[in-house]
C-alpha cells in the first residue's frame, strides 16, 4: 500500500503533472510547497475548521453517510424500483448533500483566509494559491462520494443492472461532485469580483443558505408556482428543446469558467482586504437595560459580562454565524409547516403541529449550545485566564440569562400574543406556560453541551457528526414526550397546569445543576489552556 501511495505521489509530482498544472497557469513547484504546508498545518491541528483537512471529521462523516445510504439501499431494494429510478435517487441525494457540504467548505476556505495574512507578500500567483487552497474540496469528494455511492452502486446489481453498473454509478457520482465543486468555487469567484471585501463574509454566509432555501422552496413551492403554466413556455418539438438545452449548458459552463478565472485572478490581490474585512458597520455605543437587570439579579458585573459577551459575539462571530445561518431556512420551514395547525387550539383533542412547538426549542438549543464554544476569535480567550475564578459562576448565569430571555422567553411572548386571539386567553396562556416550562427544561439540560468558555475553540467539523447518535436518541425521547403530551396531558387543562408547574420546578433544578457544571467546565478548559503552554514547548520532528 505504501509503495502504491509513493508511486502515486511520484506520478502527481512528475513532469507530466507539472506540465498539466503549468498549462492551467499553476506554478507546480509552489503548488506542492503550499500543499505540503497545508498538510503539515492540518497534521498539527491548525486547520481543523476545514473538513477536507480534518481526516477524523472526514472519516466520521464518511461512515455516517455510508450507514445512511446503506439503509436507504436496503429499503429501496425492497420496493424493487427500475434501475433508472434507483440511480436517480442516489445521484439526487449525492448532488444535494455535496452541494451543501462543498458550498460551505468553499465559503469557509475563501472568505476566511487566515493563512493569507502570512502568505500575501510571498511570490505566489493567484491561480497557484487558489488551486492549493481548494484542493481539499477534491479530498472531500474522494472520501464522501464513495461513502454515499459505494453500497448503492453494488446494490444496483441486485436489480438486474449489467456488471459495469457500479463503475457507471460511481463515475457519474464523481463527475457530478466535480461539477458541483467547480460551480461552488465559481460562485465565490463572482462574489469576490463584485462584492466589496467588507461585505464578502456576509455575502458568503447568505450564499451558503441558498442551496437549503432552494430545496425548501422546491419542497413547499407548489403553492407559489400554482399560477405559472410552465407547459405554455416550453416548446413541444424536440429540436428547439435540444437547442435550449445546449445553450443553457454553454451559458452555465461559461459562467463557471469566468467565475474560476475571477477567483484565480482576484483572490490573492484581495486577500488582505478579505482577511481584514469587517462589515464596516458602526455600532452605536449603548447600554443594554436588560444587561443592567441581569447585573442586578443574576450576580453582578460578571454576569452582565457573560450576558453582553454572548449577545455581541453570537451576532458578530463569523464562524458561529456561518454554522448557524444554514439552520435558519429549516427553522422558518418548520414554522411554516406548524402554522397550518395554529387555528386549532391544542386542547381541542386533535393533534396539530402546534404540539411540537415546545420541543422545537429543544431542537434549536441542541444545535446552538454545542456550537457556542467554537469561534473565529478563539485566540482572545487569554482574557478569561486573567479573570478571578469566582467570576465564572455569575458569568455562566449571565450566558444562561441571555439564552433564556432571548431564545426562550421572547418567542413565547410573541406566541402568547399571536395565539390569544385564536384560542382564547385561557388556552393560550396555559399552552404558553407549558411550552415555556418545557423549553426552559431543555435549556437547563442542554447548557451542559457548552464545553468551556464560549467562542474559545477553533471549529471542529467532526463535532456535529459525533453528536448524531445523541441527536437520534434525543429525537426518539422527544417523539415519546409528544405522544404522552397528546394522549395524556392535553385532555384537561388541570393536568397541563400541573405538568407546567412540575416541569418549571424541574427546569429550575436542572438549570442550577447545569450552571454549576458549566462554571466548572469553564474553569477546567481554561486550566487545560494554561497547561497547554507547557505541552507546546515540546520539540517537533
Amino acid at each position: 500500500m505504501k509503495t502504491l501511495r509513493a508511486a502515486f505521489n511520484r506520478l502527481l509530482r512528475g513532469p507530466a503533472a507539472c506540465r498539466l498544472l503549468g498549462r492551467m497557469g499553476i506554478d507546480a513547484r509552489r503548488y506542492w510547497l503550499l500543499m505540503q504546508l497545508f498538510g503539515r498545518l492540518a497534521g498539527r491541528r491548525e486547520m481543523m475548521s476545514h473538513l477536507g483537512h480534518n481526516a477524523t471529521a472526514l472519516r466520521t462523516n464518511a461512515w455516517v453517510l455510508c450507514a445512511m445510504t446503506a439503509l436507504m439501499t436496503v429499503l429501496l431494494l425492497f420496493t424493487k424500483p427500475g434501475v433508472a429510478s434507483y440511480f436517480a435517487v442516489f445521484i439526487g441525494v449525492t448532488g444535494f448533500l455535496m452541494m451543501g457540504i462543498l458550498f460551505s467548505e468553499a465559503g469557509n476556505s475563501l472568505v476566511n483566509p487566515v493563512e493569507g495574512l502570512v502568505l500575501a507578500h510571498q511570490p505566489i500567483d493567484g491561480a497557484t494559491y487558489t488551486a492549493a487552497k481548494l484542493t481539499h474540496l477534491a479530498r472531500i469528494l474522494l472520501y464522501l462520494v464513495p461513502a454515499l455511492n459505494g453500497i448503492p452502486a453494488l446494490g444496483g446489481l441486485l436489480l438486474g443492472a449489467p456488471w459495469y453498473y457500479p463503475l457507471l454509478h460511481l463515475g457519474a457520482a464523481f463527475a457530478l461532485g466535480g461539477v458541483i465543486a467547480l460551480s461552488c468555487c465559481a460562485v465565490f469567484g463572482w462574489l469576490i469580483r463584485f462584492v466589496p471585501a467588507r461585505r464578502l463574509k456576509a455575502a458568503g454566509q447568505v450564499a451558503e443558505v441558498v442551496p437549503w432555501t432552494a430545496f425548501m422552496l422546491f419542497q413547499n413551492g407548489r403553492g407559489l408556482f400554482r399560477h405559472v403554466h410552465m407547459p405554455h413556455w416550453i416548446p413541444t418539438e424536440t429540436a428547439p428543446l435540444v437547442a435550449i438545452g445546449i445553450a443553457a449548458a454553454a451559458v452555465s459552463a461559461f459562467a463557471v469558467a469566468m467565475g474560476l478565472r475571477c477567483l484565480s485572478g482576484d483572490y490573492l490581490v484581495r486577500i488582505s482586504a478579505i482577511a481584514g474585512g469587517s462589515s464596516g458597520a458602526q455600532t452605536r455605543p449603548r447600554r443594554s437595560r436588560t444587561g443592567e437587570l441581569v447585573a442586578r439579579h443574576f450576580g453582578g458585573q460578571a454576569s452582565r459580562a457573560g450576558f453582553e459577551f454572548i449577545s455581541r459575539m453570537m451576532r458578530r462571530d463569523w464562524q458561529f454565524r456561518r454554522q448557524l445561518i444554514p439552520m435558519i431556512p429549516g427553522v422558518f420551514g418548520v414554522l411554516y409547516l406548524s402554522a397550518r395547525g395554529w387555528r386549532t387550539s391544542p386542547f381541542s383533542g386533535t393533534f396539530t403541529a402546534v404540539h411540537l412547538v415546545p420541543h422545537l426549542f429543544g431542537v434549536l438549543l441542541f444545535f446552538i449550545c454545542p456550537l457556542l464554544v467554537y469561534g473565529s476569535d478563539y485566540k482572545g480567550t487569554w482574557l478569561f485566564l486573567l479573570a478571578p475564578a469566582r467570576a465564572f459562576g455569575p458569568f455562566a448565569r449571565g450566558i444562561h440569562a441571555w439564552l433564556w430571555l432571548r431564545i426562550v422567553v421572547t418567542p413565547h411572548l410573541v406566541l402568547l400574543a399571536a395565539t390569544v386571539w385564536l384560542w382564547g386567553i385561557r388556552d393560550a396562556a396555559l399552552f404558553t406556560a407549558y411550552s415555556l416550562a418545557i423549553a426552559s427544561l431543555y435549556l437547563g439540560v442542554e447548557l451542559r453541551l457548552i464545553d468551556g468558555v464560549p467562542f474559545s475553540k477553533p471549529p471542529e467539523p467532526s463535532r456535529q457528526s459525533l453528536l448524531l447518535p445523541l441527536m437520534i436518541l434525543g429525537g426518539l425521547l422527544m417523539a415519546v414526550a409528544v405522544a404522552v403530551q397528546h394522549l395524556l396531558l392535553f385532555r384537561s387543562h388541570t393536568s397541563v397546569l400541573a405538568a407546567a408547574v412540575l416541569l418549571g420546578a424541574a427546569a429550575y433544578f436542572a438549570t442550577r445543576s447545569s450552571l454549576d457544571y458549566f462554571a466548572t467546565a469553564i474553569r477546567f478548559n481554561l486550566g487545560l489552556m494554561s497547561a497547554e503552554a507547557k505541552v507546546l514547548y515540546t520539540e517537533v520532528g
Partner: protein
Amino acid sequence: MNTGESAPIVEFDRVVFSYSFTEVLHQVSFTLGKGEVVGLLGPNGAGKSTTIKIMAGILAPGGGTITVAGFPLPARAIDVKQRIGYVPETAVLFDSLTGQEFLELSGRLHDVPEDTLQARIRAMLETFNLLSDRSSRLDSYSKGMRQKILIAAALLHNPELILLDEPLSGLDVNAAIMIKDLIASLAAGGKTILYSSHVLDVVEKVCDRVLIIHQGKLIADGSAASLKASTNESTLEDVFRSLTGSASVDPGVARIVAAMQS
C-alpha cells in the same frame, strides 16, 4: 549610506487608497533611491502600514502609479514580491510550524537553492540566538523571538528592497542594537530600506531621509537635519509634534489619570 541620487528603486506617484469609503492615502508621491534608508513616520492611522502594504504588492491602490524595482504595481506584483523583504507590523505566523520550518517555507517560496537556504537559516538562527529553539513550535516563542523569525524570513532571499514595519517591536536591547547595525550594513551593501517606526530617535540615527505621513498626506520629505532646519526645531520629535499638530499630549494624560481615579 546613500543620498538617494541614484535611479529610484521605488516610485510612488499620486497614490490614492481607500478602505471602504474612507480615503486613507491622498495623492502620495515620493521616490526611494538604491541604498537609501528612509524612515516613515506618522501618528497611528496615518497610512504608514497601508503605504508599506501597497509597496509589498499586498494591497492594490485605488489610483496613481507605483513602480518597484522597475515593475509596475499591482500588475507585476509577483515580480515585486520576489525582490522585497517585508516585516509586517504584527507577527502573524503559522503557529504550529517550528522556527526552522517557517524559514524553510519562506526561502523555498522565494526559490532559494536548498544548500544556500540551509546555510542562511543556520547563520540567521545563530545570530539571533534562536538555534536551540529552532525545533520548537512558533506558538511557544516569545514576542521578540517571533519578531526575529519575521526579520530572518524577510532577509533570507537577499532582497533588493526591505520594508520594515515596526521591526524593533518586542526585541530586547541587544537584538535592537544588532538590527540597527544590520540596517546600516545592508544599506552600505546597496539595499534600500523603508523603516516605519514610532521610535523617533532610532529613525533619526539610522535613516538618511524621513517621510512624515499625516492623515493620509505626505507632509514632509527630507533629511532629519533639513526638517529640523526648516521647522526651527531641535529634535526630530519636536519636528514631528509641530508638523502633526500633536504639540501637547498632557491634557490627554491628565484625562486618563482622572478617569482611572473616578
